[in-house]
């Protein structure tokens, strides 16, 4: 068989179809739409069944903890009567140390049920350890494919630690240098082994997080008597936000504002060999968050089940310096030492809580485990070794790849809003490039995708001379 880059990429759809046990073409509709809810009911799992799968495998029912000192710290810099109560869902306590165990649990359950011998996932994040840990429970073989090193063999400390964790759970870790062709090796491995593609972006990868959305609503009611006003989700590929929001909506009719938060890595190219080790965050950042929200179907499956634009009410960025600062604050004020990437949403919540009333509730929906490499101390030291200037000042002066600015005072922690209307228009533009003709179903699909209206989508389509079928 020809294993050149071009030949393997040309076999992509065939390899994918065999490796996820889902025929995505069944859900395709008209010119560019697909049946999203149909795809999300793949496997016919109920939320109750997913909870049971997770409860039997060391996943879920993590504690929601009130961060009383951090809340009081917010109130020191908020207007009188302001400063919402901040809670964190301590997802680090799942087996394998992050909320990603929820996503892996359903994929591994499904792989076992369908008779696959093993699972493969392409991930440099906590998802690797999550898949490895769940695979261990089911006696499945496991391969994790990571982008880990630059071409000189220098690795990102937090990814090196994640590789160790995967190996600790018995997985084979295939490590690659920087580049999007990781997907090429991933396809070759799927073809060679016939294993299940435990992609983050299948319906299983999303269903598994719906339990997190449900739990945090029920936890909040139990602890405070109220549903949360705001839930902040760290946003990269969009699955975390999508699954959490879906779980919340399945649990309560009350309005809960869904906020996405990403670390601002503006100016650093994700596929650049030299930029690779100038960043201090390898996940939860704008380098994934923005392209995936504007074009979700760029993942490792034909249709991504992670569609954050359907659910997001507000999207903010925070800086690397702000997240490191809050990670240390969580440790030294709350006695909870956790990994930095999981605290992206905590830094955003700190800023957002300032403008909320004291009686309101804001929930940070994850934490991640910490260890050598995967720690703000290790990441800051690595940044300094790579020539990044670290100083105290105003975080808005931070230049990703050049500086990390730690806030010199608490009031300088300020999440920056991304205009969602611009994102929605970019999303639609990407869709309009795919087809010059749209049906009524397509238009409805796009209005759901962007959480707008039929009129909004039709108005935008006019700018691109799109021909509309069946629509008067």
């Amino acid at each position, binding site marked *: 068989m020809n294993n050149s*880059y071009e030949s393997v990429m040309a076999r992509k759809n065939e390899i994918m179809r065999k490796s996820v046990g889902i025929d995505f073409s069944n859900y395709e509709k008209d010119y560019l739409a697909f049946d999203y809810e149909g795809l999300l009911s793949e496997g016919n799992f109920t939320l109750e069944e997913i909870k049971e799968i997770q409860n039997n495998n060391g996943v879920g029912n993590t504690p929601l903890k009130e961060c009383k*000192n951090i809340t*009081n*710290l917010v109130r*020191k810099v908020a207007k009188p009567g302001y400063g919402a109560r901040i809670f964190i869902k301590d997802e680090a306590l799942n087996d394998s140390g992050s909320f990603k165990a929820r996503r892996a649990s359903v994929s591994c359950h499904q792989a076992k049920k369908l008779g696959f011998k093993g699972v493969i996932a392409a991930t440099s994040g906590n998802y690797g350890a999550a898949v490895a840990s769940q695979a261990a429970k089911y006696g499945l*073989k496991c*391969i994790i494919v990571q982008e*880990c090193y630059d*071409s000189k*063999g220098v*690795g990102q*400390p937090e990814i*090196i*630690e994640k590789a*160790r964790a995967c*190996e600790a759970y*018995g*997985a*084979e*870790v*295939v*490590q*690659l*240098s*920087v*580049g*999007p*062709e990781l997907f*090429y*090796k991933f396809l070759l491995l799927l073809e060679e*082994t016939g294993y299940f593609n435990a992609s983050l972006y299948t319906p299983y990868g999303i269903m598994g997080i719906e339990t997190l959305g449900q739990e945090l609503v029920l936890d909040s009611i139990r602890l405070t008597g109220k549903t949360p006003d705001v839930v902040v989700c760290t946003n990269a590929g969009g699955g975390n936000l999508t699954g959490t929001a879906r779980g919340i909506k399945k649990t309560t009719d009350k309005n809960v504002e869904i906020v996405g938060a990403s670390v601002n890595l503006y100016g650093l*190219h994700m*596929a*650049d*060999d*030299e*930029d690779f080790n100038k960043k201090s965050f390898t996940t939860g950042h704008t380098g994934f968050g923005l392209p995936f929200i504007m074009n979700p179907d760029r993942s490792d499956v034909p249709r991504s089940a992670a569609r954050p634009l359907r659910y997001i009410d507000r999207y903010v960025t925070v800086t690397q310096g702000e997240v490191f*600062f809050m990670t*240390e*604050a969580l440790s*030294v*004020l709350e006695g909870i030492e956790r990994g930095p990437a999981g605290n992206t949403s905590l830094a955003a919540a700190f800023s957002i809580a300032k403008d909320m009333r004291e009686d309101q509730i804001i929930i940070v929906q994850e934490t991640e485990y910490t260890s*050598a*490499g995967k*720690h*703000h*101390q*290790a*990441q*800051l*030291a690595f940044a*300094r*070794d790579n020539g990044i200037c*670290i100083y*105290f000042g105003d975080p808005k002066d931070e230049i990703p790849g050049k500086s990390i600015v*730690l*806030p*010199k*005072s*608490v009031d300088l922690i300020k999440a920056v809003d991304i205009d969602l209307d611009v994102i929605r228009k970019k999303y639609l533009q990407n869709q309009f490039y795919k087809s010059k003709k749209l049906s009524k179903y397509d238009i409805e699909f796009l209005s759901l995708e962007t959480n707008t209206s039929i009129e909004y989508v039709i108005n935008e389509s006019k700018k691109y001379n799109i021909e509309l079928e069946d629509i008067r």
Partner: protein
Amino acid sequence: MIKKGSWVQIKKIILNPEQRANNLPEATKKVPLLLWVKGTLLSDSEMNDMVEIKTVTGRIESGELIDVNPSYLHNYGKYMPEIQEIDRIVKSTLFGGDYYE
């Protein structure tokens, strides 16, 4: 000599620069795509030999032998005194400026 059956790490080029994807940034385009993987050595070899290994999933991979009993030596890095300053800022803001006195 490194004995057959040793736990080792290999490295290999999986795409040369000219075989790589289009539209890569300059810095990435000019270097090969490299792979590292660990497994059991299938024959007696010397360091930097081209060897075959069997991975924990039973796959056979070949490449340059670069390490025997590869260790986890990542750590917390050199101490960053900035961490003390963060503690001072948050504690004095919360508990008052005289907290450390």
